[in-house]
């Protein structure tokens, strides 16, 4: 089957092609969401290798069950829902809470820390802007890491992924009121942690 271009093709349509067994459609779905899913998971578990494993598990679960996808929901919501479930399960099993964007908290040497550090995609800024942005970004990352995992998921979905409260409630499987409370508290805590910077 020749590979086709999926530019301007909606997620729902790509899913239909994937349901027909087209490998290029599967690859397209991975290409579209590997970075958002990996970022969400990484910001929750703070370890590159674990994040890769969990992201991989998420995609395998979703793509192996692609026939069960219901088109009335956003594909990304379904994907994030699975990612969140898998990550929360992992966090419940292992109480990982250590923070470092510079590398795995389990890294002992500088070399292993470098090896486990994540690749941050540049947004095309000047070197100075990039440095400033990186510093601020690192502070935000640290502040997010200090939040409770449930708060982290909600605040990232709200402010990084632009999801509505209803969609977040659906993704994290919590009542709407709880989601609103979590986001409110997460904002308060972030403001408190980042207070010294302003």
């Amino acid at each position, binding site marked *: 089957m020749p590979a086709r271009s999926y530019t301007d093709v909606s997620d729902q349509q790509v899913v239909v092609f994937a349901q027909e067994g087209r490998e290029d459609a599967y690859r397209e779905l991975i290409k579209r969401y590997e970075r958002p899913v990996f970022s969400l998971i990484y910001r929750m578990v703070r370890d590159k290798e674990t994040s890769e494993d969990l992201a991989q598990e998420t995609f395998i679960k979703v793509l192996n069950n692609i026939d069960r996808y219901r088109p009335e929901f956003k594909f990304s919501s379904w994907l994030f829902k699975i990612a969140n479930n898998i990550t929360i399960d992992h966090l419940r099993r292992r109480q990982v809470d250590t923070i470092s964007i510079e590398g795995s908290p389990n890294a002992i040497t500088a070399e292993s820390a470098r090896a486990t550090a994540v690749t941050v995609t540049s947004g095309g800024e000047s070197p100075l802007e990039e440095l400033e942005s990186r510093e601020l970004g690192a502070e935000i990352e640290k502040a997010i890491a200090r939040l409770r995992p449930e708060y982290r998921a909600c605040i990232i979905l709200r*402010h990084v992924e632009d999801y509505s409260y209803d969609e977040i409630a659906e993704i994290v499987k919590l009542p709407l009121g709880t989601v609103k409370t979590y986001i409110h508290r997460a904002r308060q805590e972030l403001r408190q942690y980042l207070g010294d910077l302003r």
Partner: protein
Amino acid sequence: MIEHDFDEEFVPIAAELQRLPYLSPSRDFADRVIARIDRLQPARIAPVTAARHLEVHRGGQRAVVPRRQVSVLRATGRATAGVALIAAAAFMFFEIDVLTAILSAAVTQYAFTIAAVGTQIGALVLGSETIAYLQAGALQAIILYMALAFGLICGYAGIRTAAQIARQKAA
């Protein structure tokens, strides 16, 4: 863009959150995922599985090549030879009497048949009402025995507990 539903103090933080870059997994991430998508595997590994009796396990997916059909006659021959060998070995090592072996095998095999036939004959000789009466009696007896066993266990447990309490008090 999300609606503005937070106070002014959070605006710069929200802006920075939105500017957070996406992080990238390893370059071979997609390949590793694709390698474990069940639906995409059979076509891919088909050429590898040409050898007979080869089972390929890849990423939780199992591709099994159908075994070549063994003729019924040959299979029967092999099974008979196997059973004969095991029986011969058993006779040699345990010195089993042939007649006893045949009788015990027959009894084991036909136990249910014997029980069913026995019940039918019993019903004919004694009448179905008598059999029903006996069966009901047997049920009552089972319940009685169970109650007795329960009472015994409870009594024993009570005596042990009392003894333990007495021992503790004495200590």
